[in-house]
């Protein structure tokens, strides 16, 4: 069984004349060690797919399964717990808490989820891989955009999730930075054995992907 599966998901917003179907029978699977790229133009349904995949939105119909656990119809608390332990988010704007140092960003996770996170040695290894091991006492405002992004990646990895969901991770980056981020995401998949799912409209990431999907008007199609 796949570590992450989205099956027959439909999403409808509004009713009557305001009814809009954003996702049409979406099916998707991701395995550990692979980087899946979901591409599509703005308004194609990528973000809605990501919110449903991440358990932030309950689909009109269909299911989402993580490591065999179907959580689409679970209570809010259970979804929170599952998201905290099994899904790591990398957001477009990095969104690090401005009043927490890099070290505190990890401590916060420890406060809420004391067990199952990366060991100090493993975290140190991740930080070293990302080149941010010397930034632990810095606040986000003291970091460059690239450093903030790498901290956001480390934060997403820290609870040791099975899946990493990345939302437009290369938006507003130049070509050389896109390659670096692509390599980082690929490294996450291979070295850390995660199922990495990247939602983007940035075709420059195609070379980094193992599996490519296209989202068009709410229909997800696997590319060859």
């Amino acid at each position: 069984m796949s570590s992450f599966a989205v099956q027959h998901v439909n999403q409808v917003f509004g009713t009557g004349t305001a009814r809009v179907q954003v996702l049409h029978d979406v099916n998707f699977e991701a395995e550990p060690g692979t980087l899946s790229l979901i591409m599509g133009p703005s308004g194609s349904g990528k973000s809605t797919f990501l919110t449903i995949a991440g358990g932030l939105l309950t689909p009109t119909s269909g299911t989402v399964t993580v490591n065999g656990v179907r959580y689409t119809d679970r209570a809010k608390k259970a979804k929170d717990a599952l998201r905290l332990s099994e899904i790591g988010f990398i957001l477009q704007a990095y969104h690090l808490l401005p009043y927490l140092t890099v070290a505190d960003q990890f401590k916060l996770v420890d406060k809420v989820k004391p067990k199952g996170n990366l060991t100090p040695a493993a975290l140190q290894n991740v930080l070293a891989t990302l080149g941010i091991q010397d930034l632990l006492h810095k606040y986000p405002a003291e970091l460059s955009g690239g450093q903030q992004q790498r901290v956001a990646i480390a934060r997403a990895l820290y609870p040791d999730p099975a899946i990493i969901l990345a939302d437009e991770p290369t938006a507003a980056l130049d070509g050389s930075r896109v390659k670096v981020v692509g390599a980082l995401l690929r490294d996450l998949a291979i070295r850390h054995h995660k199922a990495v799912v990247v939602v983007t409209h940035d075709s420059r990431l195609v070379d980094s992907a193992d599996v490519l999907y296209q989202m068009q008007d709410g229909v997800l199609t696997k590319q060859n």
Partner: protein
Amino acid sequence: MFLALKEIKKEKLRSGLIVAMIVLIGYLIFILTSLALGLARQNTDAINSWGITRITLNDNANVDMRQSFLTKAQVGTLTAKDALIGETATVVKSAKHKQVSAVFMGLRQQDFIARKLGLESGRRVAGKRELVADTALKLAGYKLGSKVTLNDHTFTIVGFTNNAKINVAPIVYGELSTWQTLRGIDFGPIASAVVSKPGSTRKATAGTKTYAKQTLIDKLPGYTAQTTTFVMMIAFLMVISLIIIAVFLYILTMQKLPNYAVLRVQGIPSRVLVEATVAQSVLLVLSGLVGATALTALTAVMIPASVPMAFDVPLLAAVGLGLLVMALIGGLIPIRSVLKVDPVSVIGG
């Protein structure tokens, strides 16, 4: 608590400004409370020091000791738990010092009030021409042995006593017979009032009425209006502080909602965010209250004795607790927004 502490540590200026505001509000409320209590005590200090529970006055006196005259028949038979008092307004005059408006209280030296009278210095009254005065006269320059005149009669101050004020005026204690002389009724009424301690078995007499001590206090001229005014001021200040603190915390929380949305995306439960919001409110208000307490303590040390302020720790602690509760209520107002924060808002740029 973790998030609250980290934010306060990082945002020192913003947190400092809020704490400073709470310090000022708390200080204002503490000072007003102390002033209200000080003034209230200046009305009631003497009455409370007597240790009485009831007072009997002429039933036409409208619960005013100064307007009450009791004949020997109206006084009736007294027990050891009863005492006679003769009260009249007077002016203490001396060639060397400024005049002081005061209240003369005539006592029988064998009664419990005279026997229990605590002295700050000097001795008790032992003759018709001797007085024990409130220490306010000492602050006005009068000394033991000072010759003073009351209604053209000359007396000697032989002692000073603390907390002897009624209706904000200092008391001069003397003989009960002196009261008759000052009122010019040497052969008429023998006292203004009979005051009784708990357990008195004195029987009621015709033409008199017995009141509880609190009734007498409440009827002191201006007392109820004054205390009600202060209580209303403090209550309004409490409500205003609730609104101010709530507005500040609301703005503070609203600014953090995008951050909270990110935490919700990560799976951080709403409970943690609510705890952080409440903890931040409590920490800021507690810091403010500590500052306000320090300022109040400094004021208590530095304020001149003539200013009628009383710093009662249990009362101020209760007021501080009231402020903390108000702040907690204020801190709870933005909780609904925290609980409704939409994590989806940070997805999709």
